């Protein structure tokens, strides 16, 4: 290593920053798990606009604000009338279209931006395996969506827990209602994230990616509509499989029952006895989308 030239230091006036030469690094080098964790956290922060321009924070936090406001309103109304206006799962359902727009902005931000700027060779020339890159991004989006739905559910829970008139037993019952709600929010998050990220990873243009994500979820809804008015009961009951959103609702109806439908409310979607089919379809959809995402990243930028 070169030593700083002593003559140069003497001849230069004070107040000058001396070039101390290049320093080798002999500190710790973290392993794959830490690098994955760093990329994952970076992804979660990116979805909410942290570490980015103020403009990039507007949309994510607008959505966060709306869902939180709705949750606060629901909690407030409930504390007044003493009756829940919506269950946790119903809340997740009714917020799903907002989550969709959140995905349409966040997924391109996570993957399309890297495709566009050509930064991927800089990642893949480092020890991190390609699959880790894709999975860290996916996990980050799942986490962000789950926080987006689960956070307000927690607000609703706190509102209910503090206003319950049954003491600890009331809090406990409320918690038992909350947990399936959080799981259902998780299902929304996994399905939206895996499909949304796959679509976004196909293009480097953020506008196209956002449009593609919205299209996949919204354009499939009319198919569900058509199938559900066909004169065949089986077709009607399987109609929900045609769109990711109704697929999630189908799984919810099957697993949560009246926690989602409410008393005597038969909702829009009837799945008959096909609940397990919906569950299986959801698993296949998520696994398939993830496999395709990994396949995409085996090829891209090599």
């Amino acid at each position, binding site marked *: 290593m070169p030593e700083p030239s002593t003559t140069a230091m003497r001849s230069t006036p004070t107040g000058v920053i001396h070039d101390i030469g290049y*320093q080798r690094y002999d500190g710790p080098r*973290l392993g794959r798990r830490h690098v994955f964790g760093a990329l994952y956290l970076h992804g979660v922060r990116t979805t909410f606009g942290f570490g980015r321009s103020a403009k990039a924070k507007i949309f994510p936090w607008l959505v966060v604000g709306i869902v939180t406001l709705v949750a606060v309103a629901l909690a407030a109304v409930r504390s007044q009338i003493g009756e829940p206006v919506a269950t946790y799962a119903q809340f997740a359902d009714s917020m799903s279209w907002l989550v969709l727009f959140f995905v349409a902005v966040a997924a391109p931000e996570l993957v399309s931006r890297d495709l566009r700027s*050509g930064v991927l060779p800089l990642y893949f020339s*480092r020890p991190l395996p390609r699959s880790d890159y894709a999975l860290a991004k996916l996990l980050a989006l799942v986490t962000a969506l789950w926080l987006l739905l689960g956070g307000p559910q927690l607000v609703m829970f706190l509102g209910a827990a503090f206003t319950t008139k049954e003491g600890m037993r009331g809090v406990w019952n409320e918690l038992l209602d909350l947990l399936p709600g959080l799981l259902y929010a998780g299902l929304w998050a996994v399905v939206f994230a895996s499909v949304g990220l796959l679509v976004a990873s196909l293009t480097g243009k953020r506008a196209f990616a956002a449009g593609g994500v919205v299209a996949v979820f919204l354009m499939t809804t009319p198919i569900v509509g058509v199938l559900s008015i066909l004169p065949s009961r089986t077709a009607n009951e399987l109609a929900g499989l045609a769109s990711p959103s109704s697929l999630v609702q189908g799984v919810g109806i099957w697993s949560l029952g009246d926690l989602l439908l409410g008393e005597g409310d038969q909702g829009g979607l009837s799945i008959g006895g096909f609940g397990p089919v919906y569950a299986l379809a959801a698993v296949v959809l998520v696994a398939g989308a993830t496999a395709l995402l990994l396949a995409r990243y085996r090829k891209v930028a090599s």
Partner: protein
Amino acid sequence: MTLIATQSLTKTYGGRVTALADLTVAVEPGIIGLVGANGAGKSTLIKILLGLIAPTSGQVSVLGIDPTADPAAVRARVGYMPEHDCLPPDLSAAELVTHLGRMSGLPRTAARERASEALRHVGLYEERYRPVGGYSTGMKQRVKLAQALVHDPDLLLLDEPTNGLDPAGRDAMLALVHRIGTEFGISVLVCSHLLGEVERICDTLIAIDGGRLLRADHISAMTTATDVLAVEVSEGTEELAARLAALDLPVARDGRLLLVPLADDSTYDLILGAVAELDLPLHRLDQRRHRVAELFATRELSHA
């Protein structure tokens, strides 16, 4: 220790396009120039060295590690600067280099410190907090170099680092690369299609053409043997040539010049003596360093 060694390395794409054909080289640490025309297989070689693509056949080892078997171990010790634009425009150089340092396994604080060090070494100071999108080409090239340096690699792979730079920018970049190779103690493989550029800074030169090895050797071995003296006299060129040939000096004609290989200092004396004896007006006598390009003069390399 051998820095990079390949044995009959071959890469074909789709069984038809041959990017590398039977390439066997072994180079020692230092600054290595990899020259070849566009499409000669330089980028393919770099990608194989990084373990990004697998060779069709043959063996390769980088820093004693086989990148086809353990790419992560190679990549942990290698820094790569790609040829093309690869910087997200909305991030600042400091943020980007810090993030990529973490992707190389540096802890958070170490990544931040090393990022600002690396950026300082490549000559980016206050501007490192501005978004990269507003940078000049020269500054972008420096950021690309800094991100390759951030994790303190033992070997840098630079793919056309002077691409898109003006002459002054090229000189600055080459000086920087030379400094990294000599002062920082990091070996560098510089890839370029401009032979004249890399021969100025490298110790070893690998020339490839059409995926085949043209020559790989120390630059000193390529140049010292071919130093020549150029003699020009205003008249009597023929007589001088005959006299020098009589003195057992292998003379070559190059227009009005006589070229005499420089064996040692006595060659000067012989020539001056011959000129004096014939009483010719000596126009000039100077030592000419053979450009390495002349070694490949028959190839299009020298004009590339």
